[in-house]
């Protein structure tokens, strides 16, 4: 029989935990709303940009002469692994880490042995994860403090420059895409070199005028769309993180409530048992005196 004081202490601690998790749930819910607004704001821009780009590239034979589209094989790899700075969000962080590690060990183990795989870690969690495994990591985890386009674009520019300079041959993004508050889609995308945009509807074939020229516009738009793609991945991941945390904390609160219910039942039973015991002792004591 559990002793009363023990159960009482446990109940108090479960109650405190429930308070913390439910507060975290509230905080995540409000942060999620803001993050969701940001991703909804960028979607029209991104969609339009990709639409214009696909309109353009449809009429071009290849992008080969663009510095961002050069295919140099698979010698030097950069993996951009995006997760979060904080924990307590379910499998959110682990999924990204595992996927990125799997990508490295399945496809690029040879390059890894030659020291040609770098990881750009966005988020403390993934930074620690890859550093522990002795993979060369570059850290970018202060991005989440100022998540706006002005702060993100220098980072992307640096990645694009190192690609053009030949420091990397392939750049991949691994991140969680935000679907809704409860669902995240784990994504792996080839960021660089640029692959030709597939056109879904060639029916909308309009004869555009191009100023200054088709090639010039492509040259201008590709870096732009790369930046947007990266920024969008960050926003997606940010919203997904808050969604994941909200769901995780919701579950934790529910679990704490269940546990509390079970504990209070146990407590009441123990209390009742001890009372019965006491009465029994008193009664039998009195009987012994009478007899």
């Amino acid at each position, binding site marked *: 029989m559990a002793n009363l004081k023990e159960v009482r202490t446990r109940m108090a601690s479960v109650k405190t935990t429930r308070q913390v998790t439910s507060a975290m749930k509230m905080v995540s819910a409000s942060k999620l709303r803001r993050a969701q607004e*940001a991703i909804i*704001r*960028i979607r*029209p*821009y991104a969609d*339009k*940009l990709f639409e*214009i780009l696909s*309109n*353009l590239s449809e009429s071009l034979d290849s992008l080969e002469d663009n510095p961002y589209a050069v295919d140099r094989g698979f010698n030097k790899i950069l993996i951009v692994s995006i997760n979060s700075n904080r924990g307590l969000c379910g499998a959110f962080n682990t999924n990204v880490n595992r996927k990125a590690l799997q990508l490295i060990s399945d496809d690029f183990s040879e390059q890894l042995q030659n020291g040609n795989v770098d990881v750009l870690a966005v988020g403390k969690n993934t930074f620690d994860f890859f550093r522990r495994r002795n993979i060369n990591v570059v850290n970018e985890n202060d991005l989440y403090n100022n998540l*706006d*386009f*002005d702060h993100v674009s220098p980072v992307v520019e640096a990645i694009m420059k190192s690609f053009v300079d030949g420091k990397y041959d392939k750049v991949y993004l691994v991140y969680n895409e935000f679907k809704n508050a409860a669902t995240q889609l784990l994504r792996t995308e080839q960021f660089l070199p640029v692959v030709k945009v597939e056109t879904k509807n060639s029916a909308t074939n*309009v*004869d*555009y*005028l*191009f*100023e*200054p020229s088709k090639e*010039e*516009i492509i040259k*201008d*738009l590709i870096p*732009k769309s790369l930046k*947007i793609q990266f*920024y969008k991945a960050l926003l997606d991941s940010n919203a997904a993180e808050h969604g994941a945390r909200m769901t995780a904390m919701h579950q934790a609160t529910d679990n704490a409530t269940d546990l509390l219910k079970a504990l209070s039942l146990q407590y009441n039973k123990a209390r009742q048992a001890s009372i019965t015991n006491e009465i029994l002792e008193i009664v039998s004591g009195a009987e012994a005196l009478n007899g």
Partner: protein
Amino acid sequence: MKLEIVTPDAKIYTGEVKLVQVPGADGSFEVLKNHAPIISTLTKGKVQIIEEDDTEKIFEIDKGVIEVMKNKIILLAEKI
């Protein structure tokens, strides 16, 4: 004409306009009603619009791209 000005961080403007003047890469140009479809990159400069009720608005943009199609104008600006 319907005009939309969008940046990565926000939708700056939506509305009906009479005239849009933009800083094209090859020089400034104006878009009036029934302009031919065009895609053009823009440089740093002023975007001037005249709304249906003749009010004038000016936005400073830092690079961008404009698409005009069937009296629908989409202006993607990197920064305002």
